[in-house]
């Protein structure tokens, strides 16, 4: 947009070209500013990863994955029980939540416009926005009060409550993306509705649903707030449903707000491991996403 390249127009109006120059300059300044915005947003991400690597990587060793946390003052120790606890919690949440969520998602996709479906869809969206701490308190008031103790079961239910609305909506979206012709083909062959869905539609939407499930699992694996009053944490090995259990995010929180340098180091290490887990799952789902039905 350089005015000089146009040569000197016959009816040069100095004012007009000054205005144009000013507009062009403003244009450049504002567009540069948007680039600055992008930099400002990306920098914290880089900083977070930088500090995780610097402060966390040094503390990751074999002990970290195989040992129980050491008592205060003793060096070493690991977070093996928390790793296992997070695994149990996520698996339990998945076992409880995924069937419900996929069922509800298929219901939404198939019953699309019925009043009940509208209500269910709306509830799922609203539940997606409920603060995780409120979910924790709800499960405390329900399961923990009922059992009389903190437990793996309560933690799993809390995470399942977080997972259900997320997976419901992604499942609905993925099932909707299956071409109508596939479904019609099933019906034309004389299949019943349920066989069409289970035998044709769900397999066709499988990778999309799996992606949604993985994303949701990665998200709940990093949740702390719903576990504070449900799984509670436990310094020892634990796998029983009715006992409190440790989890990686809980331990990071506990260690980060402690006054001990040794624990701070371990918190960074645990955070690095947690991020590694979460990102590995997210990235895995990203590759699954590249399937022909995925387009919005």
């Amino acid at each position: 947009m350089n005015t000089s390249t146009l040569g000197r127009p016959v009816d040069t109006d100095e004012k007009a070209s000054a205005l144009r120059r000013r507009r062009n300059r403003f244009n450049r300044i504002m567009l540069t500013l948007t680039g600055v915005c992008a930099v400002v947003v990306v920098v914290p991400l880089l900083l977070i990863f930088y500090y995780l690597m610097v402060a966390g990587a040094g503390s990751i060793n074999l002990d970290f994955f195989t040992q129980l946390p050491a008592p205060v003052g003793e060096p070493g120790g690991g977070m093996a029980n928390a790793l296992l606890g997070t695994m149990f919690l996520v698996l339990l949440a998945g076992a409880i939540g995924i069937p419900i969520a996929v069922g509800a998602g298929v219901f939404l996709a198939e019953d699309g416009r019925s009043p009940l479906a509208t209500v269910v869809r709306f509830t799922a969206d609203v539940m997606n926005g409920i603060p995780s701490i409120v979910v924790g308190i709800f499960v405390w008031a329900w399961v923990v009060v009922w059992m009389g103790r903190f437990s793996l079961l309560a933690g799993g239910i809390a995470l399942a409550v977080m997972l259900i609305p997320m997976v419901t909506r992604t499942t609905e979206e993925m099932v909707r993306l299956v071409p109508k012709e596939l479904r019609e083909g099933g019906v034309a062959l004389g299949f019943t509705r349920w066989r069409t869905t289970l035998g044709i539609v769900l397999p066709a939407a499988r990778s999309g649903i799996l992606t949604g499930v993985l994303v949701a699992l990665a998200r709940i694996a990093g949740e702390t707030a719903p576990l504070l009053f449900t799984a509670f944490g436990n310094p020892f090995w634990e796998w029983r449903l009715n006992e409190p259990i440790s989890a990686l995010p809980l331990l990071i929180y506990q260690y980060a707000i402690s006054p001990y340098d040794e624990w701070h180091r371990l918190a960074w290490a645990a955070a690095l491991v947690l991020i590694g887990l979460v990102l590995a799952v997210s990235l895995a789902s990203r590759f699954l996403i590249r399937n022909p039905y995925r387009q919005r």
Partner: protein
Amino acid sequence: MNPKADPPVGIPEATPASVSAPPGGPGPFRRLFPSRQRGNVQDQVYGFALKGFGILLPVLFLFMVHRIGTSAWPAIQTFGWGFITSQEWNPVLRDFGALPFIFGTIVSSFLALAIAVPLAVGLAIFLTELAPRWLAGPVAFATELLAAIPSVVYGLWGIFVLVPFLRFTIQEPLSRRFGDTIPFFEGPAYGFSMMSGAVILSIMIIPFISAVTREVLVAVPREQREAALALGATRWEMTWQVALPYAAPGIMGGAILGLGRALGETMAITMVIGNRPDISASLFAPGYTMASVLANEFTEATGALYLSALMEIALLLFGITILVNIAAQFLVWRVSRRGGS
């Protein structure tokens, strides 16, 4: 999934409405449900099962409201409206007022919005209007990663990196220079403060706002942009005067969605805001939010009334976030509907 899952192998019976029931088929049931001619019994069971799964969500939601509501009821009865107007939070004297927490939640969230919205919109404009493909992809991916980082990791980073940085390079100089004249910069620079909370929240909600903004910017019809350019607008003028106004309700929806996130955010802000139930104009003074007080005091609450007061805070937080989310969804829905038609 289907309790009556013994389908005949091979071709299952086809039962359109006009065909009479197959021999040996679900005759008795058919007579029981004469109006449901479409589909067979298996499909009815299947339909009920699906509906059951669907209904579980509203049921769960109502149960949630009920559990938290009944637990909060003693506090609601004891304190009435005073609960949300009183500044006193004294578990020893059994005197509970939630105003400092409501103040902290709202102020930190809106400050976070004030930081996040310009940055997120700028980023979205950069990605949709300006950045070449090779750059836009990685930058967009990076912002998505930002959304995938667990809250507690933000908190950890906040405690050890962000808070010291804000304290020594921003808060202390500002406090020395303007502390006496501007109330926002008053008092000693603690580091763990309302400002730290707002900054960490803003980093966390930017991905959500910029994702929605990008979506609505992309939905702006090509003709609108081309018309503006044809009239001689610069790229920025096209964006600012044509694309952004068109996308404005959607951006608003994205911002409100971000607000909903910020209001309910717990771990990160609990770790950096300082957790002191005071109402102060100073950004450098510690604050407290509703989510934080729940995280900190819930397991230590002694006495039924204390617990019930915390439950009432949970109920308030629940209500506020639901309203905010409904508003956001309404706005985004309106824009996407317009874009679709």
